[in-house]
Structures are given as structure tokens and as C-alpha cells.
């Protein structure tokens, strides 16, 4: 085991069983672990000027597109065809219910659903970057159906 430089005392532990049955005798020094904190000031890099700004919403636990989302995406397809050089970021999100890692994966699936629709409609894969924030960046705070339905989304930007 890699002994920490910061262990002020080496850990010693003696367990002696005395002759007169079951008396436990121990001697131990308390260890002291140093802690160094790190601070990150860097913000995630802002993407290009906003060309498309659409949001599509999803049902609870689902990542399939609704007919309403498809309407919104038709506009995005048109825009991308007129601007074949732009790269769009598809950012998936989930509502707060369920575990954080599963929601991260669910957000990613939602972003992929949007990507797959756009690709099926002639957009190139390399024009799309899909990622997820899971439940970490809610649009609407609050624990009710209305807030949750706003948070289950893919932001296209």
C-alpha cells in the first residue's frame, strides 16, 4: 500500500490476547490525512453564434420523438440544409426523477434520437455533436409535472 506522505504518525496497531482469556489490549496512533482542494474557474466553452435554437420535449422515461417534436425538427432540417457548414450541438436532459447516471444516459439517448432523425433527413453526422447533462441542468425548478415536462428535453443550439 502506498503510504501517504501526510501520515503524521505511522499507524501502529497491536492486538494482544492476554493469557487470562479474551482481554483485548490495543495501542494505536491516530492518522492525519492532508487535503488539498482544487478550484476550477473555467466555464465550458461557448459554442458558435446561435443559428438554430430549438427545443424538443419527451415523455417520462422515454426517448422516442413525439409528433410535436418532429414538427420542430423539420425547421432545423431546413436551416441546416441552407447552412451546410454549421455544427449543431444536441444537448439532452432528463427530469429529476430516477438516478443521476441513468438520467445522464437517458439524456444522451434523447440527443441521439434527435441526431438520428436529422441524419435520416439528410444531415451529415459530422454536423452534429450530441451530449447529455442528465438531470443536472433543469430548465424549470420545482418538483411537479409542469416543471418535469419542461426539463425532459433536447436543446438544439
Amino acid at each position: 500500500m502506498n503510504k501517504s506522505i501526510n501520515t503524521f504518525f505511522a499507524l501502529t496497531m497491536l492486538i494482544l490476547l492476554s493469557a487470562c482469556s479474551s482481554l483485548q489490549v490495543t495501542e494505536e496512533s491516530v492518522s492525519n490525512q492532508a487535503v488539498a482542494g482544487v478550484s476550477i474557474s473555467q466555464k465550458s466553452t461557448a459554442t458558435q453564434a446561435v443559428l438554430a435554437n430549438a427545443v424538443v420535449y419527451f415523455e417520462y422515461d422515454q426517448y422516442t420523438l413525439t409528433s410535436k417534436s418532429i414538427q420542430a425538427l423539420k425547421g432545423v432540417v431546413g436551416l441546416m440544409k441552407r447552412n451546410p457548414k454549421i455544427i449543431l450541438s444536441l444537448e439532452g436532459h432528463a427530469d429529476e426523477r430516477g438516478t443521476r447516471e441513468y438520467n445522464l444516459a437517458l439524456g444522451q439517448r434523447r440527443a441521439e434520437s434527435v441526431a438520428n432523425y436529422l441524419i435520416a433527413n439528410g444531415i451529415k453526422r459530422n454536423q452534429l455533436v450530441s451530449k447529455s447533462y442528465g438531470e443536472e441542468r433543469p430548465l424549470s425548478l420545482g418538483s411537479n409535472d409542469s416543471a418535469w415536462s419542461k426539463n425532459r428535453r433536447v436543446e438544439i443550439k
Partner: protein
Amino acid sequence: MKKNILLSLLFLPLACFGELFLEITKGSDDPFKVAIIPFAGSEKISKPLNEVIRNDLNRTGEFSLLGTKLLLPLIIEDGDINYQDWSLLGMDYLVAGSILQGQSSVDVNYDIYDIQKRKKIRSSKVFGLPSQIRQLAHYTSDGIYESIAGIKGIASTRLLYVNEIKSKKFNSNYRLMLADSDGANEKTLLSSSEPIISPAWSPDGQKVAYVSFETGLAKVYIQDIATGKRESVLSKDTQISSPAWSPDGKYLSLTLYQDGNAEIYILRLRDKTLTRMTNQFAIDTESSWSPKGNKILFTSGRSGSPQIYELNLRRLNSKAKRISFEGTYNAKAAYLPNEEGIIFVHRSRDGLFHIAMKYKKENFIRILTEAKMDESPSVAPNGNMVIYGITEGDQSMLAGFSLSGASFKLPAAQGEVREPAWSNFLR
């Protein structure tokens, strides 16, 4: 050792320290009755030391400590224990100790007596710096717990958790925190304006792994606690999340999104070799290792809803086996330290999320918590306590319970607190 899960309500608000405030909400219904004669020494040391020892033992829920006022007339002279008197008081055990202060060190000596058997069962000494009073007290209470309860104590272990301080317009500050198991001695390991999730301990307690969104994309980092040195575990340009250390510390299981879908991989840290463990159209994530390191648990959506699967790592091409069947949402599972069962997040029929446990030898699950959105259970290394995240009103905080039925809360002074991770034994 397993006592009844249902217990009497015992409200014992305790002193607060650090940024988390420990509040014991329930005790066990069949506790060990113990008298602790306050350890004598200079008040500056003896007061906090005695307080921390009592709080540690109270928090386990398995101890009923005799009130200090009742102890005054019962002084021990020359190590002569009047077993008859202690027995009449209904005590099972007696603890007596002393504090010896040197120039730059403090020694704590204590003895434990079994009243029924009329004999001394332990004689111990812990020593350290005068600045380490809380640690000395934790080591002492762990010794007392071990001798009486028969399993190792966890007062000297530590917790990791995420703290989010929300401010107007989404400029939250996220912090990865380290604290003693009672919430005291809180330290910031990482502070960032982007989310931090999924903290995990290395088995030796020297390092942490976590997911940070600082680059705009979820990535797993490993950070050395003492030096603050940190690195991104893989230079791949893909989302990486859900780190879990193998029990020998040599591997990290991870979720990679390189095909656009969450799949589980195992990374050998020595040479960064990646081995793919799942290959499925559905989501696979939240891996965790068995105590022996021969199996992993993970959450998969392959059946149409999140369920828990187990994969044997020793058998070549073994297939993942589904092990959760009740309900439509079972996730984030971890093995109990003795592998007697698993603990996980379960969605009940009313749509609420609870912490649940399933023992191997039982064919039903036990729902252990009753708030609305309970999440992220983490089991103490002695297997006897669980800490997890709850939401009360719109405030998230940590709560815990022991398998003997005691429970406690650790509300934060500031912001939201969630995703606790319990360290291994650190002594």
C-alpha cells in the same frame, strides 16, 4: 446481530458541528446499555472528546448510554469495579478512560468492563496530536463499538458528497466535499461552476474518482486527496461517467458513450487498457464491484425499463443475469460488504423512489426508506449503516440508517447536499 427493523421513536437532537448537522431521529429498540464515565483531563480536551464519543455511539442507534448526571456518585477507585451496583443500574457494559496530555501529544486510555461476566474485556490506548481530538474520539468510540457490538465501528471513516449552492440565473457553484462520518471537519476537494456527479472512493481512501462537466462534456477524473493532483482518466473525445473502483484498486469500471449509447467498460489503470463489458442497444450504466472483485452489478434498460443485472467477470463470455424483478425501476445497485445481498434505488407503484435491499436468500425486496425521492445509497464498510440522499421540501440533504433500525439526518447549512459515498475503513 440483526435486530428488529421497526423501532420506538426517540428524538435526540444533538450538537451541531461543521457544515452538516447531525440529527438522530430514531434509536434501536433493543440497545446495549452502557455507562461511560467521562474521561478526565483538561476541560479543553475532555469536553469535546467525551461529547464526540457519546455522539458517535448514539448515532449507531445500538447503544443506550447512561446519562452523565447519574454517573457522578459512582467513581471507580483503584480500578475496583462494583459490578453489583452497575448491574442494579441495568448496565451491560462500563467504559472508563483517562486523557494524558503531553507537550505535543494526547494519549487516551480506556478500559471496557463486561458487567454480567464481571471482567475487563478491553484495555486500549490511542494517541495523536492535540489538534486531533475528534479523531482520537472516533478511534476510541470505534474501539468501544467493536468490543461491545462485535463488528468494527465506522466513526473514523469518511464521506464524500456533492454540494450545490444555487444562486440566481443558474450560476450554481458545485463542490465535491470530504468530511468525517459525522459531517464534521468538512473540506472542499473540488469547486466548479459546472456540475459534479458520481463521487467514488479508491479502496485505500487516498484518491477519489468523479464525473465533472467542466469541459462541457461529462468526463471522469481521478484526484489525489492529499496533493490535489488530478487527471482525466482517458483522453478520448467522448462522454465518460459512472466510475467505480475495483476492490484491489487496479481497475476502474466506467460508462463510455463512444457509440452514442451508454456501455460499460473496465479500465486497467496501470496501462489504460479498456475492456468492453456490455454490448447492447439499450442503456447500460452504474456499474459497481462485488467485494471480492469477481462480479459487477449494473443498471440496464434492455428489458424496457431500468433493472439490475449481474455479470461474472471470471467466466469468459458470461452473460449478464437480471437480478431485479419487482417494479419498473430498479437502479444504482451495490453489494453489501459481506455479499449477503444488494442495496439499490427502487421506484414503487406510487411513483416514489426509495432505497431497497434484497437479501440473496430471500425472494422479496425490503423497502427501507419512506421519503419521496430517495437516492444514491452508500453502505458503510461494516455493512451496518447506509447513507443516502433525500429531498425535504425543495431541499436535498443526506440521511442514514442502521440495519438495527436507527436513523439519522445530516442537513447542510448551505445549499443542496447529495450523492454520499462512504469510504472504506481508513485505519
